[in-house]
């Protein structure tokens, strides 16, 4: 088994599923001969033909609307939105149709669609290219929101997303597309949706995070360990619906909760996690919850993006704060 990056794992998952399920069709801007601007679909058009790996005209609302129609007629579309900042024109189709076709028709029609899109900042991109607005979609009933944090999880979760009978928004953290290589077996085994992954066991504080922020969070946990603070790190993985049980269990053991995400704080997914614990785990809390998040500002253009993104120092300080009060 070769060591591969997350982006390679994503290509591999696509290829596996296309090989085994002829109803899987890829569509998106520049995903064909160019293989996608991040090369997630490289080689797939050559291998599966231009019916099954389609470059589309430049229109995200169109891509989402086509997915609805294709899925309702028996295909499994996997669409790429080139950057999350360009998903907004697709929201109408996602909210008003894709996520509620099953409900609206009492199960007569459904939309087994995956929408993949790069997530987050940190790679010196142009304006509008560093968005992390998972909260918008987490608020929408009827669609799952998933975000992997390693090559292996990207492979397994993407397979699960494609096989799921309902729509999944699959967020790919650009900062770690090529961050750390990992051995990933190309065995077609999906990972479960709707559950968290425990990245590191700990006893003193629970830190919940996802996507690229897992890297900084794990670094913070290492630093904290050196000080004698044992942090449990949970990768949310499926951002919606949230695996509350896993989080509540962990907080019941540690008594402290820190949530880390790069999206803006206000009404971010961190708020939901905090609310769940304030409702169902309040008596377990030995200290106020801490959120370490992006600020309630526009994601700055890249010169200042690292002033915006939660740093290891901020995470460590937030954990410290749970021991001060």
């Amino acid at each position, binding site marked *: 088994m070769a060591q591969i990056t997350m982006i390679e794992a994503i290509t591999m998952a696509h290829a596996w599923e296309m090989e085994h399920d002829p109803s899987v069709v890829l569509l998106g801007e520049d995903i064909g001969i160019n293989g996608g601007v991040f090369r997630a679909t490289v080689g797939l058009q050559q291998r599966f033909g231009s019916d099954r790996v389609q470059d589309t005209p430049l229109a995200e609302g169109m891509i989402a609307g086509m997915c609805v129609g294709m899925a309702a007629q028996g295909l499994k579309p996997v669409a790429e939105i080139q950057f999350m900042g360009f998903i907004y024109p697709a929201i109408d189709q996602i909210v008003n149709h894709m996520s509620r076709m099953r409900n609206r028709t009492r199960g007569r029609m459904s939309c087994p669609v995956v929408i993949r899109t790069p997530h987050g900042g940190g790679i010196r991109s142009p304006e509008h290219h560093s968005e992390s607005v998972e909260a918008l979609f987490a608020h929408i009933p009827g669609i799952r929101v998933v975000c992997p944090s390693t090559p292996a999880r990207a492979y397994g979760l993407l397979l699960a997303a494609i096989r799921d009978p*309902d729509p999944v928004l699959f967020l790919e953290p650009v900062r770690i597309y090529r961050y750390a290589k990992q051995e990933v077996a190309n065995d077609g085994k999906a990972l479960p949706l709707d559950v968290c992954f425990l990245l590191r066991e700990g006893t003193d504080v629970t830190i919940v995070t996802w996507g690229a922020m897992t890297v900084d969070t794990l670094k913070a946990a290492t630093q904290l360990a050196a000080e004698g603070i044992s942090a449990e790190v949970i990768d949310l993985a499926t951002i919606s619906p949230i695996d509350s049980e896993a989080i509540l269990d962990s907080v019941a053991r540690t008594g402290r909760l820190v949530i880390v995400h790069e999206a803006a704080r206000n009404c971010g997914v961190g708020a939901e996690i905090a609310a769940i614990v304030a409702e169902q785990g309040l008596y377990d809390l030995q200290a106020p919850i801490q959120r370490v998040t992006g600020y309630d500002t526009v994601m700055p253009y890249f010169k200042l993006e690292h002033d915006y993104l939660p740093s290891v120092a901020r995470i460590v300080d937030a954990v410290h704060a749970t021991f001060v009060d």
Partner: protein
Amino acid sequence: MKAVAEFKIHYVQMLDPSGQPVADLPAFAHSRDELVRMYRMMVLARTFDTKAVNLQRTGKLGTYPSCLGHEATHVGAGAALRPEDSIAPVYREIGTQYWRGVRMVETLTYWGGDERGNDFSGPRHDFPWSVPIASQTLHAAGAAMAYKIRREPRCALAYVGDGGTSEGAFYEAINLAGARKLPVVFLVVNNRWAISVPIEQQTACTTLAQKAIAAGIPGVQVDGNDIIAVRDTLEQALARGRRGDGPTVVEALTYRLSDHTTADDATRYRPEAEVKAAWQIEPLIRTRAFMAATCGWTDADELALKAECAQQVEAAVQEFLAMPKQTSDSMFDYVFANQPVRLTVQKALARRYSGQGH
């Protein structure tokens, strides 16, 4: 300056408002059976429509959008389609749907505020009503893409209103359909009004068929009150799609004789004279006149048909009124195929409070 592209938009009419043929008629127009089938469906749609408006007035239905005046366009489309084709309707297209097997009780269920009305017993592959204007044009294009990829000789038909042609989604759909030569027909139902906004305020175009030019595909205008012309034009467009020759925009010129919906009062914004004039060219009169002239349709036939339609509608209403309400569970059971724990918990909570709201 050199001309690098030229375009023409043609207009098709076969029966004039009095029922006189004004062109060579297609074969089906010489068949009494076919004519009766089509006319019967137009009368049924109108009978149902009148009843539905009344049911709304007495609180049995919610907001209802009448199809009054659109019967030739909708039934003509129904007659042109094959069962394996699919449609992506907006909210007035019962004339097509009943032809294809949707039951009247389903229409009532839907406008009665119940999602089961979208669970058509008729063509299971037809899309449900689509309230967000123009969004359904992309679903039809997506369906067409599925047929094309699977190499099935089927065609999708999307409906869109004159107002709907202002939404970006419509152009995205026709452009994509053109670029990929998809088997899809876009039926622009130009009834001259989008609620209170007349077509002249919606666009500077003199025809809506010419929007097709922006997608590099054929556009044609048809008298939407002339069921012969509608059916014939759509049969050709659908056949073109099934043959793999690509999409067509068909603009049907008709008129919304009713208020926009039962929640609307068109007298606020629409001149009475315009409505009166539109009644002169509505679709049923001319079809009946043509049938009387060409295949002996009598007043007795007419009376019998109306009675039959009224009876069918009444049966549907009774079935509708007798339907038990969905339980609160139904809110949860179709959100996902694999229900997350969170929803299971909420479902139990909802049961506890069900019926206590108002």
